[in-house]
């Protein structure tokens, strides 16, 4: 059993070694982790300040979504305040790619997918209009953020939001979103 565990970790590590990975993280998305990874991303992308700023802004919104809305909460501490999830940032010759993943309830997943599909059907100006409309309306009761994070992510990135979901059981799915930012 131990041997198998190690092997899968080695496989995971080798897979990641094939890409130029800036950050790979799985665990609770607490405020200190966000700050550490955020600073790392800022420093890494310093050569291209504009792309760096966008990458940082996108990271912050996606990470805060995991932190606030992941169904899975931190079990390492007695307070289950922080959402648990995973995040990968890597670079290709032309882009930075940022992916995040976390558990969601299936009914929440439906709302997120619907919102992402709506976002992906809009051009830049319509996205700005959508952001203004959402920002000007009252926050849903269960929202702690601004309710415009995904729209902001789309505005700051260069390709449609690439979303995927894997059903875990009747109630839950694992949701991932991938975003590209041109250098």
């Amino acid at each position, binding site marked *: 059993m131990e041997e198998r565990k190690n092997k899968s970790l080695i496989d995971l590590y080798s897979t990641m070694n094939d890409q130029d990975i800036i950050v790979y993280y799985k665990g609770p998305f607490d405020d200190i982790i*966000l*700050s550490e990874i955020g600073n790392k991303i800022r420093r890494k992308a310093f050569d291209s300040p504009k792309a760096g*700023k966008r990458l940082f802004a996108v990271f912050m919104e996606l990470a*805060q979504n995991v932190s606030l809305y992941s169904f899975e909460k931190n079990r390492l501490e007695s307070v289950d305040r922080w959402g648990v999830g995973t995040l990968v940032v890597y670079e290709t010759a032309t882009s930075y790619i940022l992916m995040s993943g976390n558990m969601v309830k299936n009914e929440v997943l439906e709302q997120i997918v619907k919102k992402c599909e709506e976002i992906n059907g809009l051009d830049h100006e319509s996205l*700005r209009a959508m952001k203004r409309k959402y*920002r000007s309306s009252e926050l849903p009761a269960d929202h*702690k953020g*601004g309710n415009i*994070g995904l729209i902001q992510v789309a505005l700051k990135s260069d390709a449609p939001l690439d979303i995927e979901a894997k059903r875990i059981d009747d109630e839950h799915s694992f949701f991932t979103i991938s975003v590209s930012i041109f250098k």
Partner: protein
Amino acid sequence: MEDLTIAGSRDIYFSPSVNLKAATGVCSISGESYLEEPYEFYKKIGMWFTDYIKQGGKSIVLDLKLSYFNTSSSRAILETLRVLKDIHHSGNEVTINWYYPNPDDDEILMEGEDFQEECGIPINMIEYELQDSEN
């Protein structure tokens, strides 16, 4: 009436630097905004503006020079701008200046334009030269 002064900081959270001057009504919020309690932070600023007018202040100038803010902050900033709109609509002089960096960074300008459209009060868009240290 006291000034409201908050030193900017960039630690686990980022607080903008806030300078609200009771003697002149000339105020500024600058830096980066990613806060643990954004609504409380900006509510305090909105309340200061309301009190300032209640206590006889006639005009407010607000310089906004923000280089980064997350979406929770942006919602809270919009609330503050709406407080200023109400103050303006009740006959007081309110000037809002939105500073955006050049070159080739129109994203901050667009944020300013979006705020203007949403809060319903004119905002002056003012370009400034980005220093290396501000990148």
